């Protein structure tokens, strides 16, 4: 079956971001960018399905700036067959992204779409669910295990109290949780080969999708700083402070 994987270009997870002085957003100039960690897991799962002979073709798609081609090339180096970039300069909300992905799904007709559970920049955790809604597909969110049997997909999901397994009819949407797998690294020969794999660039207009938004960001601020703490010398001092100073025990 054909598997579609969506990836996002985000700030590298190790970067401590700074809020811009004019409170218009966070400062992304000259900051290291990378593939969203949950998207790496999504790519890895698709590649494993291909290695098991379940997936026949992996198409990787990103909605973002021209520079997101770097992340698509990374996915190609990891084992995806071809890539589609829906190029847009503006930063889109989850609904607009889901609509653009829906247009790609309509065109590609995949049996399975894998996304990360959330992007570590907006922390929205929406796109997969929205794409499932727009496509009318079943959804297996926060997946820690995925099994394909015939036209059915068994997904074990991480829920608040533990784990839950659901059976979904294909085509379906899966969003990855951290424990689904451990992504591999791209080897140098594969990085070189990935440069020759096909990468199509389309625009939202060409897909006939409006990206108008109902949400406006008014300002972005740094969170309130915590007041400086103290170092205690012993457990006895710690207990004394917690009892008499902080009064929390």
């Amino acid at each position, binding site marked *: 079956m054909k598997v579609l994987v969506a990836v996002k270009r985000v*700030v590298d*997870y*190790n970067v*401590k*971001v700074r*809020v811009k002085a004019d409170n218009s957003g*966070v400062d992304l100039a000259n900051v290291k960018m990378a593939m969203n960690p949950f998207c790496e897991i999504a790519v890895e799962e698709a590649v494993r399905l291909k290695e098991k002979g379940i997936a026949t073709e992996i198409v990787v798609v990103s909605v973002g700036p021209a520079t997101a081609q770097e992340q698509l090339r990374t996915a190609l180096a990891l084992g995806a067959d071809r890539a589609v970039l829906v190029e847009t300069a503006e930063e889109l909300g*989850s*609904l607009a992204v*889901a609509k653009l992905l829906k247009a790609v799904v309509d065109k590609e007709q995949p049996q399975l779409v894998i996304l990360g559970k*959330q992007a*570590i920049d*907006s*922390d929205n*955790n*929406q*796109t997969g*669910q*929205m794409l*499932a*809604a727009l496509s009318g597909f*079943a*959804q297996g969110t926060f997946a*820690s295990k995925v099994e394909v049997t015939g036209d059915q997909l068994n997904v074990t*999901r*991480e*829920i*608040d*109290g*533990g*784990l*839950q*397994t*659901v*059976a979904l*009819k294909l085509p379906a949407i899966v969003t990855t949780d*951290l*424990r689904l797998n451990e992504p591999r690294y791209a080897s140098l020969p594969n990085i070189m080969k990935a440069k020759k794999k096909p990468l199509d660039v389309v625009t939202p207009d060409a897909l006939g999708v409006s990206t108008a938004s*109902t*949400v*406006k*960001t*008014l300002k*972005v*601020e740094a*969170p309130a700083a*915590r*007041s400086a*703490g*103290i*170092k205690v010398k012993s*457990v*006895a001092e*710690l*207990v004394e*402070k*917690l009892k008499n100073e*902080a009064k*929390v*025990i």
Partner: protein
Amino acid sequence: MAILVIAEHNNSALAAATLNTVAAAAQIGGDVHLLVAGAGCAAVAEAAAQVASVAKVLVADHTVYAHQLPENLAPLVVELGKGYSHVLAPATSNGKNVLPRVAALLDVEQISEIVKVVSADTFQRPIYAGNAIATVQSSAAVKVITVRATGFDAVAATGGSASIEAIATVSDAGISAFVSEELAKSERPELTGAKIVVSGGRGMQNGDNFQLLYAVADKLGAAVGASRAAVDAGFVPNDMQVGQTGKIVAPQLYVAVGISGAIQHLAGMKDSKVIVAINKDEEAPIFQVADYGLVADLFEAVPELERAL
């Protein structure tokens, strides 16, 4: 203007996060209606009717809603939601699963994990693992929002007297089914609602050593959490993970033991009132957010702490 809140429950009891979500709804202003969708959930509906500031409880009791599968539940919420100015759900794994599906079907954007209500259309939410707070304004006809429980003080679970109304609509998409569930059993308080949380990280070295934390937690009546490192290493189950990708907690006291304090972990606990760090590495970033830091070997300090309590 009325607000629909989707109740979080397990068919027998109302989850605490619902009370925080009702608090957020009350701040927005307007009648608050609670939707209890489940199977054999009459007891939950009764409890929901007692919740302070709830005007009406809608009950959809049918086997198709037993496990709140989003494919079945979302169409119901969409149908009901059209009559409301806001649809809210707690930002639990259930709420996060269902609500974006609702928003897309209503063709509106969702606002995730609000921590503050500025006005009926303006909200604050953390982004970039809590390293920035965005103020966002929605012009959507129906505002679809998940609520971070730790951002709002819970309303009282009793004292209300809402009417209960049965909803007959049954939507079965027939594309998904519940297979099984494996819930971690714990007699300690629930992590997200606990007043005190004791968490262990990679420094615990193995799962058995978590017994040291359990002993302290039991003396304090605390819940036990973990960092991603401890979960990935298999020391403890993943539902104990605190952080950007795990649970968000804001207890009165958070004790971080053998946790370095990576950005992703801090995202889940830095709104705690008092933070204590026990770590042998005095350069560990956790000390930058800790109110009280103790540089010591946890294998000596934690048993000593237990004896001192």
